[in-house]
Each structure stands twice: as structure tokens, then as C-alpha cells.
């Protein structure tokens, strides 16, 4: 398949690995921000191929993992309303809230439908005019424009039974919050390639400029990831941090202007609570006043009650990269993909899930 096979070529990967090994003389600690990168790195066995001088940390770039329990409870409460069809991406379905999950609510009779796209959610709305379709909007800047488009489309079609629960979050603010906390010492960041496809590579410049940390925007194929690590290693060895683009076929400095316009038309930044990190100003998205009528929080009165955090769960520390899954007492004992305690285990790209499924132990 074009643009996939070429970027999985083993011969090119070996060249990059050799170069990395040659260049990475001093110990360096890099963070892959994005959960998708964590999964790709495990799936292709990249950690195994890197020299021991490089330490890879997983970051908080998992929109499911960072959804606060109170927001999850809200989504579940909405799904449980009569005449409401909750449409959601598959990622959210098993995440445990304070008392339940979308999947459990579905088993108890709530109408929860898994969709691949908001296009499918709009179709459900068209086919069920007497019911309200609430789309559970999670995701970062890659996904938010698609939800914005769905709202505009619903407006065009005068669909009056389509609503969005906006739990969308923005990525540069959380990186800044992480770096400001001083909890983690990093030499470089593998920046999210699809978020950057939308927002461009320029939003990451502050990381190199103000914090002296190397940046490389990476795609999700092994060649992209290895190339980005090679770029980070070069920047570190040259002591010249900047924002390199390894994913040139998709990322430009200014991003996708049309997508950014759509996002800006429908949404505006607002404060948001990040699970395990706490509130970060201007890090979430909410529907603008002109689109209020699509806002599920305003249209429906739900009070999910007090939030309950599971004891012993250190997802917060893992998301902030101060601990790893192996540091958690519950990891692989009480907390497994089948009986997850926290979101990092249930989300398919949560750090704990990746460690559990792909095996923390590697073989020579």
C-alpha cells in the first residue's frame, strides 16, 4: 500500500538505526508525546533496536487517558437518558468512570453506538428523527476539526437532533504545563504528526526556543519514527534544539488552514481538566455561542454526582511521565485490560495497555 509500505522498509530502517547508534554518544531522554507513537514504537519493536544511551518515555498524548472522570461520568449519564442515542468512538467504550462505563451502560439498556466517524453519527441522527444523538467528542486537534465539520453540516441540513459533548483538548498547552512542572527532564520530544498536520509545526517552536528541548515532528511508520529520533539525536549532539519535520509528506509549518478555520468557527478555547494533571487554562475546546444549540451540556440536564477516583491508580503520574506502568502496584495484578482500573490500561494506546499487551520484556 502506497505511503505505508515504503515507510516500513527494513533496509532503510537498518540504515537509520546504524546512524542513530553512531551518533547517540551521550545519554538522551526523549518523550514520544502521542499515544499512537507509543503503540507504534512497541508494535515495531523500536525500543529494542535503539542504543542503550537513548531512553524513551511515554507522554500524555492519549485523549482517552486524559479525559477527567467527571467528564466521563457526564458522558455516561447522557447515554442513560431516555430517547438519547450516544454515538462514540470505540476508544471510549470501556473506560471506567466513577461507577460505570459506556459499555456497562449499554449492557444495562442505554443506546450506545460505536461509530468510526461523525459522518456515521449524522446518519444515525437522520435515521432517528425522534431521538437525540449525542456525539461524545474526544480527541485533540486532529479530530476536533472533523467534529466542527459535523456541526456545520448538521446546521446546513437543519438537523435538530444532533448534539456534541465537547471533551476536546489542545496539545501545546499540556506540553507547556508538563515542562513548567519541572517534574520531567527531557532532551527531546517526538512531536505528534497528525496533530501537527492540522496545527503545523510552528506551535512547537516554543519548546525548542524557551526550554532548549529538541523537537522532531514524526509520522507513525517505523521509518518516520526512526528518522525523527535520528533528528533529535543530531540536535542534541550539536546542542542546537529546533523543530525538525520528519513527516514532510504531511506536515507543513502552517498546517491545514482550512481545518484550523473550521475549528475556530465552531469552537473556542476554554479551561479543561486533564486527568492526572489537573486544570490547564485554555487547553480545552467548547462550542461557541452561535453553536450553543448543538451543545449537549446545555441541551440536557445531567448531574452525574460526585466523582470517585480509584485508589492506588497512578495514571496521573504515568501521564506526566514521572512513573512508568511497572511502578504501579496495580499493574498486571488488579489492573489488566480485562479489568482496568484506570484509563491508561483500557485505552488501546495508553501506556499501561501498550506495556501489558506488547510485553515489557523484550528478547535479544
Amino acid at each position, binding site marked *: 500500500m502506497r505511503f505505508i509500505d515504503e515507510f516500513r522498509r527494513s533496509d532503510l530502517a537498518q540504515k537509520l538505526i546504524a546512524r542513530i547508534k553512531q551518533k547517540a554518544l551521550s545519554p538522551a531522554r526523549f518523550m514520544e508525546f502521542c499515544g499512537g507513537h507509543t503503540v507504534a514504537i512497541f508494535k*515495531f519493536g523500536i525500543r*529494542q533496536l535503539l542504543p542503550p544511551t537513548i531512553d524513551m518515555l511515554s507522554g500524555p498524548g492519549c485523549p482517552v487517558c486524559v479525559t477527567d472522570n467527571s467528564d466521563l461520568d457526564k458522558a455516561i449519564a447522557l447515554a442513560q437518558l431516555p430517547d438519547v442515542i450516544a454515538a462514540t468512538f*470505540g476508544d471510549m467504550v470501556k473506560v471506567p468512570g466513577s461507577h460505570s462505563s459506556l459499555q456497562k451502560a449499554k449492557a444495562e439498556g442505554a443506546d450506545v453506538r*460505536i461509530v468510526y466517524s461523525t459522518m*456515521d453519527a449524522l446518519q444515525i441522527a437522520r435515521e432517528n428523527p425522534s431521538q437525540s444523538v449525542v456525539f461524545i467528542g474526544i480527541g485533540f486537534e486532529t479530530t476536533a476539526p472533523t467534529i466542527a465539520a459535523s456541526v456545520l453540516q448538521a446546521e446546513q441540513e437543519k438537523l435538530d437532533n444532533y448534539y456534541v459533548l465537547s471533551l476536546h483538548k489542545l496539545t501545546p498547552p499540556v506540553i507547556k504545563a508538563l515542562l513548567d512542572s519541572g517534574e520531567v527532564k527531557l532532551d527531546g520530544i517526538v512531536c505528534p504528526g497528525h496533530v501537527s498536520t492540522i496545527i503545523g509545526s510552528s506551535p512547537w517552536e516554543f519548546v525548542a526556543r524557551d526550554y532548549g528541548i529538541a523537537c522532531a515532528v514524526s509520522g507513525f511508520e517505523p521509518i518516520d519514527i526512526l528518522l525523527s529520533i535520528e533528528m533529535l539525536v543530531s540536535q542534541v549532539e550539536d546542542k542546537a534544539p529546533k523543530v525538525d519535520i520528519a513527516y514532510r509528506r504531511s506536515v507543513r509549518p502552517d498546517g491545514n488552514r482550512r481545518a484550523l478555520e473550521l475549528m475556530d468557527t465552531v469552537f473556542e478555547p476554554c479551561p479543561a481538566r486533564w486527568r492526572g494533571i489537573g486544570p490547564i487554562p485554555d487547553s480545552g475546546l467548547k462550542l461557541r455561542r452561535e453553536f450553543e444549540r448543538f451543545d449537549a451540556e446545555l441541551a440536557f440536564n445531567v448531574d452525574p454526582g460526585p466523582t470517585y477516583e480509584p485508589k492506588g491508580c497512578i495514571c496521573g503520574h504515568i501521564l506526566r511521565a514521572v512513573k512508568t506502568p511497572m511502578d504501579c502496584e496495580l499493574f498486571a495484578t488488579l489492573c489488566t485490560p480485562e479489568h482496568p482500573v484506570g484509563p491508561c490500561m483500557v485505552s488501546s494506546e495508553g501506556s499501561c495497555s501498550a506495556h501489558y499487551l506488547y510485553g515489557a520484556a523484550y*528478547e535479544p
Partner: protein
Amino acid sequence: MSRKILLAHGSGGKLAHDLVEKGFLPAFRNPLLAKLDDSAVFEFKGRLAFTTDSYVVNPIFFRGGDIGKLAVCGTVNDLAMVGAMPLYLSLSFIIEEGLPQSDLEKVVDSARRAADEAGIQIITGDTKVVDRGSADKLFINTAGIGMVAEGVDISGWNAKPGDQVLLSGTIGDHGIAVLSQREGLTFSTELESDCAPLNNLVTEMLRASSQVHCLRDPTRGGLATSLNELARQSKVSIRIVEDKVPVREEVFAACEMLGFDPLYVANEGKLVAIVAAADAEQLLAVMHRNRYGRDAAIIGEVREEHPGRVVLKTKLGASRIIDMLVGDLLPRIC
């Protein structure tokens, strides 16, 4: 006959009898069934294999098959996986009130054709009809009986270090074909389910070699789950090479799009065989000659160290551990 299945069709009265005599009997045509006694009675000598299964696939019609074909093939294959020659099946229908009669007829016809291909007879059955909403259109339960010849001992406990792992063809076809027709995930493809009876393939393999140690059909949970089961049962480790596992381009593309791993997607017409190394090439040749084994490949080997573990060597040369499927495969955005 009325156009839709009614509750009365399951109540044992006239409509129910009509269904059996005008619907099932002519389709399944055999003297044991025709007796219509409460139980089928037959002679037997030797070792019996006995299996049961229930089929609840949604949608009930999919490209490459339907729930009827699935029910027969699935049961036949369970018998074949212990080296048994499948003989008789029972077929029980639980029908949701309102199912169009033509749908039932299609399913019965598919079951018949699958049974004919496998060379087995459906000798007893049952029909129940439940209220609308109590069953998702149609559920089928089966039980299967087969005969295990003397000297045949195929079991998940028999894998030995040094054995080779053979796979009969491409993985993930069934799961993706079925998924492509579910609401909310529609994409179009020519891809068909691989649903097929494998007993003839197994017979040919057993004729060629007495060193087939294990057989398994990787249905729900996919190849990865089956390999894990075998590794645990036999207390060995299994190492497979990603490059050698055949996957159709469409399956690969669909998995990339939805975020699945083909190793975990269901198959309904494939088998994994663990065989003595000396017979591996010969068995591969036998499989290639069978219509259901054309894409067969040797995908790995059995080792002694780290019992219970399954390891995949990736295309880049790194190795990673593959566990069983946990929970359900859910499409993801991340």
C-alpha cells in the same frame, strides 16, 4: 406457508410441523432425520468426538456466507481439529418472531450445501420462536459427532520443541468481511468471509503424515489467541515470523483504518497445524493442493524456553510478545 416466522412456528403445532416437513426435511434429506423421532438412533464402534457450539453472528448474511453455513462449517471444523471424521450434526434454531421466512429458507439452504460439501448429515434438530427483541434475528446451536480413527491423537497438549507451525492461508478475512457490513463501520470491499469446512483438508494431511501434533481453527480471538492456547497447553513457546504470515491487502488496509491487528481478527476457514519438522514441507505441499490451503505457509516454530509465551519477529527484526485477545476488538481513532 406464511411469509414471516410467527411464535406459532415454535410451539409444536401445525405451523411448526409444516416448517419441519416442508422446510427442513427436504433440505437435509436423510433417513435418520426422516424418522422424526424425538432422538436419532444410530450404531457406533470406536472413539467418538463430540462438540457443541452456538452461532450468533451479526449480520446473519454476509459476503461469502451466512449463519447457516457458519454453523455447519464451524462445527465440522471443531471435529476436524481433533482429527475426527465428522458424521452427524444437530441443528437447533432460536428464531426471533418476525424473521422473514425467505431468510430462514436461505440459511437452511446454505447449511445444506455446507453439509453436503463436508459429507455430514443433519439428523436431529429443534425450533423455538421467541418474542421480537429476544433474539437478534436468528441464533443457531449445534452439536457435532465424529469418529476418531485408531492411532490418531491430535491435541493442544502435543506440541514439541522443534515442531514447525503451519498456517493454511490468509488471516482476518472473515472478521473484516463481517465488520464491513455493520452499521457505523461501512466500507466496501470485495472481500469475502473464508467460511469453509476443513475436514477434507485435514483428512489429506493425516493421510500424508502421522506427525501432525496439534490442530486448531483460529476463530474468535484470531491466530494470536489460538497460538497462546497451544503454547500454554503444551507448555512450550511459539515463535512466528511476521513476514511469513499471509494477510490479504484488503484485510491489512481495513485493519490499518480501524486500528486492528490482523493477528486478532476471526477466521472461519483456516487452521493452524503444529507438526514434526521432518514432515513440514511435505504437509505444506499437501495443503497447497487443497482448495482451502492454497496460501498455506510455514510461519514459525516451537521452542522449549519460556513456556506459554508467543513471540512475533517483526518485519524490522525486533521481537515482541503477543498475548491472547483481551475483551473485544473495538475500532479506534487513536
